[in-house]
């Protein structure tokens, strides 16, 4: 795709930047903690943009003061799912907001094959379009050469 020449998945914050180092991730987490957000770790191997709910890796971490706890959890998740997408999400529990305030990918598969455009002919001459990840041709947990 012309809009994404690197062929990398661009979801969440910082996704057009080079991968964040652990020190940079720690700084982001620290920023979120200062704002009072609760961090959580999630993973998936289905990169479809409408796949909103990824699998949770453990519970969301409330009442943390230091980024080290989140980082430890993230590293554990990386060890368990080295070929999956992993993201960190910050939940803002302020009354009236109660939603995700930050979200960025911290781990991605070595090779991301990207998406194909699927066309479907409808009634008359209408065309329906959708995207499908090449990776999801294979069953779950066998994608990305895991």
């Amino acid at each position, binding site marked *: 795709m012309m809009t994404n020449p690197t062929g990398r998945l661009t979801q969440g914050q910082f996704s057009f*930047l*080079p*991968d964040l*180092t*652990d*020190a*940079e991730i720690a*700084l982001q987490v620290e920023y979120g903690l200062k704002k009072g957000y609760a961090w959580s770790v999630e993973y998936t191997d289905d990169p479809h943009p409408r796949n909103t709910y990824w699998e949770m890796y*453990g*519970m969301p*971490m409330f*009442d*943390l*003061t*230091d*980024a*080290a*706890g*989140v980082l*430890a*959890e993230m590293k554990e998740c990386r060890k368990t799912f080295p070929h999956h997408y992993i993201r960190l999400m910050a939940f803002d529990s302020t009354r009236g907001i109660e939603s995700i305030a930050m979200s960025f990918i911290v781990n991605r598969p070595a090779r991301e094959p990207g998406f194909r455009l699927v066309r479907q002919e409808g009634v008359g001459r209408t065309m329906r379009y959708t995207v499908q990840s090449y990776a999801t041709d294979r069953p779950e947990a066998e994608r990305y050469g895991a």
Partner: protein
Amino acid sequence: MTTPLYAIPGAPATSAPGVTEAAGVAPPRTVAQVLAQSQVEAVLDELDRDLVGLKPVKQRIRDIAALLVIDKLRLAHGLAAATPSLHMCFTGNPGTGKTTVAMRMAQILHRLGYVRKGHLVAVTRDDLVGQYIGHTAPKTKEVLKKAMGGVLFIDEAYYLYRPENERDYGAEAIEILLQVMENQRDDLVVILAGYKDRMDTFFQSNPGMSSRIAHHIDFPDYASDELMAIAERMLAGMAYRFAPEARAAFDEYLARRLQQPHFANARSVRNALDRARLRQASRLFAERDRVLTEADLTTLDERDIRASRVFAS
């Protein structure tokens, strides 16, 4: 990981350590220079002022502080300085100030620069050990994550291990604890506290725990003059004071109380003072029509002390 293409302000320098330091101030060469740059001396002074007695504790904190200063000087010469293991174990009789010191320790270590955040998470067995299979590990890990960047204080730590029940989940909590104590020394300081004899049994059955704790500090019992100083400090904190005769009476009270069983040092002193306050209150309460001055309201009388059960025998 590739080197970043951009720089985040305030980010720990990953590519060139030491560059930022050199750009700021010249590296310190003497102990006095380091002391001037840090709060070490203020911390030590405050400790001396606020805590009565507790010589071994103060000495150990002074040693730790000294190591920090020397490490900074070593760093200026480019010598490696690994973070020392700071896990501690406080043992001592009831009321010798184990919990009080632990509460302050988080603050002290933070100001000395050993922990990043300086908060204290105080837990007991209930917070670490679960009730069914598979409950313990997530529970312990959650507590550990909360304590990271600060101090984890485990009160009555010997309850973690129950030798009489071999299916007890406490062993699992200890295992996870040991792992984190070893691997994430920079992130977390663990302080165990408990009575001396029971902690000894605890360590005998968990030798791994004992060897991973660098500082075993024994809290001595207070001498009677120290107890008196503690009492006056407690009263001052509550905006009370002894009448001159009351002080003598309390001195006598302490001497008698020390002979009796179950004396819990500072805790017994606090309880005695609380009871004296009650007696003072009912003494004043009885005089309905008297105008009470501030002195009346703040002074503990000799009668308030002498009415104690200790003097009865």
